[in-house]
């Protein structure tokens, strides 16, 4: 990662994260992220060739349960926290013309 360096395009990352940043935000986050990413370069010193990655500490595979119909959250309750809803659905700004 050092050849790429910790330099990165903050506005590109912010867009991926769906996070609007103000100029003040950029001025604050950029040096903080640079500092953290520089610190993370220390991982380069460890040889990890041939090591399997760990995604979960206690891996369990193929946990299944009987495919049975069970009660679930009633629609009314699922919508109770919605900022806007109508006709048993969430309302969002128009996405297709």
């Amino acid at each position, binding site marked *: *990662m050092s050849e*790429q360096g910790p330099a*990165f395009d*903050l506005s590109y*990352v*912010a*867009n*991926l*994260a*769906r*996070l*609007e*940043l*103000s100029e003040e*935000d950029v001025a*604050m*986050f950029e040096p*903080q*992220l640079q*500092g*953290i*990413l520089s*610190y*993370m370069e*220390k*991982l380069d010193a*460890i040889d*990890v060739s041939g*090591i*399997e*990655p*760990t*995604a*979960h*500490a*206690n891996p*369990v595979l193929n*946990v299944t*349960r009987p495919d049975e119909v069970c009660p679930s*959250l009633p629609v009314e*309750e*699922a919508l*109770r*926290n*919605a*900022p*806007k809803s109508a006709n048993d659905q*969430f309302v*969002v*700004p*128009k*996405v297709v013309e």
Partner: protein
Amino acid sequence: MSLASQTIKGLQTLLQKKEIQPKEIIDSVAEAAAVRDGAIGGYLGLDQELAHRDAEEISGGVLAGIPIGIKDLLNVKGQPCGCASKILSNYIAPYDATSIAKLRASGGVPFGRANMDEFAMGSSNENSSIKPVHNPWDLERIPGGSSGGSAAIVAADEAIAALGSDTGGSIRQPAAFCGCVGLKPTYGRVSRFGLTAFASSLDQIGPLTKTVEDAAILLGAISGGDKNDSTCLDESVPDYVADLQGDIKGMKLGMPKEFFGEGIDPAIRASVEEAAKQFESLGAEIVEVSLPHTEQAVAVYYIIATAEASANLARFDGVRYGYRAPDAENLGEQYAKSRAQGFGNEVKLRILLGTYVLSSGYYDAYYLRAQKLRTLIRQDFTSAFETVDAIIGPVSPIAPFKIGENVSDPLAMYLADIYTISANLAGICGLSLPCGYMTPSDGQRELPIGLQILGAPFDEGKVLKLGHNFEQSTEWHQRRPSLG
């Protein structure tokens, strides 16, 4: 002594003899909170009437009639669950988390929303978007985090016990800073269903209590398999309280040399070394062990935890729940503006970091590499537990600092998590309990020091037994902060 100052164990006896009613305990906790919490800030809310109603419905169980404080990221049906975030300020939980359902099944009454770092991101509780928590031992200082509210209300006798969550030390470190007991269970011991996710491969719910015995009682109540969380293992739940009995003669305890190197406060080091001697006097054998990848743990953790957080927190988009920005013209803007206006700075920083380490071109260099190093960190513990029963060491290299002292330097805060985060990466269990007190160079007041006991997966019984033996042979757990 007020009922709020009691332990679970003490109240069990009083309730069984019918000397007191559950309502009186709830009222005593509410009164203690009314008197002390203005200065401490450990609670975000307390619904006394609801707790009274809940208490009336109890039919029995090991926690029958005992109120338990709940960290603000655990869903309790009908109560706010705001994760100390503006983005969830109006959120009402539509269901009980499994740990809460189990708590109720044991007769416990969820009472009070405990303050925390927003979305459990922080080690100082300064990242709560509602208000900071003050350390009961010195109100100018942080209580630790992210379960800072849970630890502070227990330490200040504003609660009997509390539930918290631990992703990188968020139960153990505030327990150490506030002088109470905190347990992070093995990954898969307690269901995460209904716990607002921060980093799903690291999060665990656990107890914060006044004694090790209380931690054993509460852990027993919330543990066990869950069909709603496939990572929660269907291992049998032992009788943790019965397991406390007996001595620890012949048990072998490892002290990792990497936990006593550069950066540790000399007073903390001395106190933990003294605790090791105490274990020797109880008949345990102390040996040196090595956890060679300790130095890499902070970097590995902050890659994996932020990567998972960036994915988990994608659900806060202003559509189904939470804050929606009023000024968005299209859906994309609604996402970006709602999140910008709803999240606090530390949460944004971690989302950005997590998004970056997962992004195209950087995934292999950061995320995949961190996952491989996680394998090595896990192997370090597996090897150590082949030769020792448990590992002992400090919880934090530093004493609780003054509120505001480190807010502009997130990396400095991350580095102080060094002794706790590797347990989450390895998925093992860990207990924190008081082992001494110190007066820092920049203060006059005594501050607690925490001892950490780490155990192999599902070895909570052994860790609790060690902690109980240590606790009962010392007087550290009997001290209380002098408030007011």
